[in-house]
């Protein structure tokens, strides 16, 4: 029974592929009098699979985007002691449909002095990397869309494309605020890409592979619970996970790192001149990027689709992904925004050294013997001590810059 649900979509896909191949054979028989050659059948099957995967990913994550906006609005509302959207559909679930309909039908304004081509292309380009990133994540057991050997690198490489789009948007709009936003976006995203990649390096070191499927496989155990192998339980994994979360927040321009669109300072930053559906595309790219980052975080540190065998593997993946999304929303509901120089300083002076030190700690962990329980415990404690010590030293420097609560006097 568990296997049935676990492999439901895989089986469904295989059945559909089989159907298409059978149909192809039928057509071929009708035309040429004989079934397709093996190579042709293979090609048809592969092509069908690609189309299926694309349609599914876009369909599922477009829906997830809607749900995420709804979730964000509801969660922020609850944090702020109110209901949030609740008039459209049950619990306001159809709110994003209404927003979509409205966005689609809004007038599309292109400023007279804008660079028309760049202004037009930017929203299309911003969405592409956000969608492509999903291609490298294994969503469940046997459910990896692609199984590249260099999936992690490919993920980061594709994700870096969004900087270009944001810069195009800011530049093409010819608005002072949007240029400020664009420059901020580029500076921030390039800076945070480094700690982001470095946070993922320990995992790659331990697994010895850049393939996301293998990384997930390395975190699995065959037990019923299947949580023990997650990298987040190791000291370096935990530190890496925190680093990854922070860098991913910055990478997807989410509060408290949302300075490229910093509403209270530069209105809406790079997309200040975008209206209607183009604006919706930016919105969508932000959320999809955020979910892709969450997916990668799940893959790298939270055991991918592994989990107690109460839920199918793909459900575990989605659940963990949405938990990370919830965490990002929670952050947004709480924290103020950093200033642009502080943001850069934090990336270069705090996160980078800590990420490098984390790699060192991982190397120590790698070479420490872990055959017996006692040895594992010792290795765990030593690595943890290293990580904590590094954290304390760095936080000392950062808090000196950040300032401290003061003592106040009263007039006599």
């Amino acid at each position, binding site marked *: 029974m568990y296997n049935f649900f676990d492999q439901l979509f895989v089986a469904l896909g295989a059945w559909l592929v089989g159907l298409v191949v059978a149909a192809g054979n039928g057509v071929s028989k009708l035309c040429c009098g004989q079934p397709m050659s093996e190579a042709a059948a293979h090609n048809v099957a592969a092509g069908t699979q690609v189309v299926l995967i694309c349609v599914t990913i876009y369909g599922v994550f477009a829906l997830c985007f809607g749900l995420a906006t709804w979730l964000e609005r509801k969660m922020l*509302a609850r944090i702020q002691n109110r*209901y*949030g*959207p609740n008039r459209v559909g049950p619990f306001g679930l159809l*709110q994003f449909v209404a927003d979509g309909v*409205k966005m689609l039908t*809004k007038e599309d*304004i292109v400023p007279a002095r804008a660079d028309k081509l760049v202004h037009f292309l930017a929203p299309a380009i911003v969405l592409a990397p956000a969608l492509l990133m999903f291609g490298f994540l294994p969503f469940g057991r046997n459910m990896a869309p692609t199984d590249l050997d260099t999936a992690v690198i490919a993920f980061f490489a594709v994700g870096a494309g969004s900087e270009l789009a944001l810069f195009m948007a800011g530049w093409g709009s010819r608005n002072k605020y949007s240029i400020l936003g664009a420059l901020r976006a580029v500076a921030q995203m390039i800076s945070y890409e480094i700690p982001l990649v470095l946070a993922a390096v320990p995992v790659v070191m331990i697994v010895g592979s850049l393939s996301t499927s293998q990384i997930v496989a390395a975190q699995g155990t065959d037990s019923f619970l299947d949580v023990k192998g997650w990298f987040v339980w190791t000291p370096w994994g935990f530190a890496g996970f925190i680093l990854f979360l922070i860098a991913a927040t910055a990478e997807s321009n989410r509060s408290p790192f949302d300075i490229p669109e910093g509403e209270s300072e530069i*209105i809406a930053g790079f997309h200040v001149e975008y209206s*209607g559906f183009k604006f919706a595309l930016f919105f969508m790219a932000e959320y999809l990027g955020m979910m892709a980052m969450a997916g990668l975080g799940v893959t790298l540190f939270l055991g991918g689709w592994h989990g107690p065998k109460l839920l199918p593997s793909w459900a575990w993946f989605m659940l963990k992904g949405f938990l990370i999304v919830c965490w990002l929303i929670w952050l947004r509901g709480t924290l103020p925004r950093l200033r642009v120089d502080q943001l850069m300083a934090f990336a270069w002076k705090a996160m980078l050294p800590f990420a490098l030190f984390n790699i060192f700690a991982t190397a120590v962990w790698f070479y420490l013997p872990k055959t017996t329980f006692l040895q594992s415990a010792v290795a765990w404690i030593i690595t943890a001590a290293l990580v904590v010590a590094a954290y304390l030293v760095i936080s000392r420097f950062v808090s000196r810059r950040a300032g401290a609560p003061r003592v106040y006097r009263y007039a006599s």
Partner: protein
Amino acid sequence: MAMDESLKSELQKAGVFVTSIEQLYNWGRKNSIWPLQFGLACCAIEMIATACARYDMARFGAEVFRPSPRQADLMIVAGTVTKKMAPQVVRLFNQMPEPKYVIAMGACAISGGPFKEGYNVLKGIDRYIPVDVHIPGCPPRPEALLHALITLQKQIEQDHLTGKRKLRAYDREQKAEWLVPAYGEHDLEPPRNPEVWKPEPQVRPEAK
């Protein structure tokens, strides 16, 4: 030219189709009114209070206050429009994409209110831009703003994509840009936009 029966029924069919698109369209716009984050004076505080926990405008899907006029649907003119501010208000309204709506919140926005006899106060924003809903009050309670929002939603429900009463956004004959007044030596120039400002009746209505 007489219309034959089959064409009529076909048109009716098309009409049915048009109506349902219209309904979906109106439903979407109605439930996703994003106001411009734009406060002028006292009423703006009540506008914020409306978005806050006690009254929670978010329930109607209208809590997404966009700071950029390009992404907003609704301009809540919340407070006194001074003559110095009026050109900017009109410009902001021009910058918003169609379909767009205006709520004049509070006495000052409708008519200049208590301050209307001042030399720098515009006697109502409807001298320059078309207003959909007026809320009297100084300031109106947050509930009154919610009531206005519901009134606006009801109005949107009755919008048409075609026909005589079609939306401004789909009417090529309608103006797309409103006149932005210039600062004059004594007053704004022109002091009112005659294409928008059509008081009816023209004078103090005399009771019998």
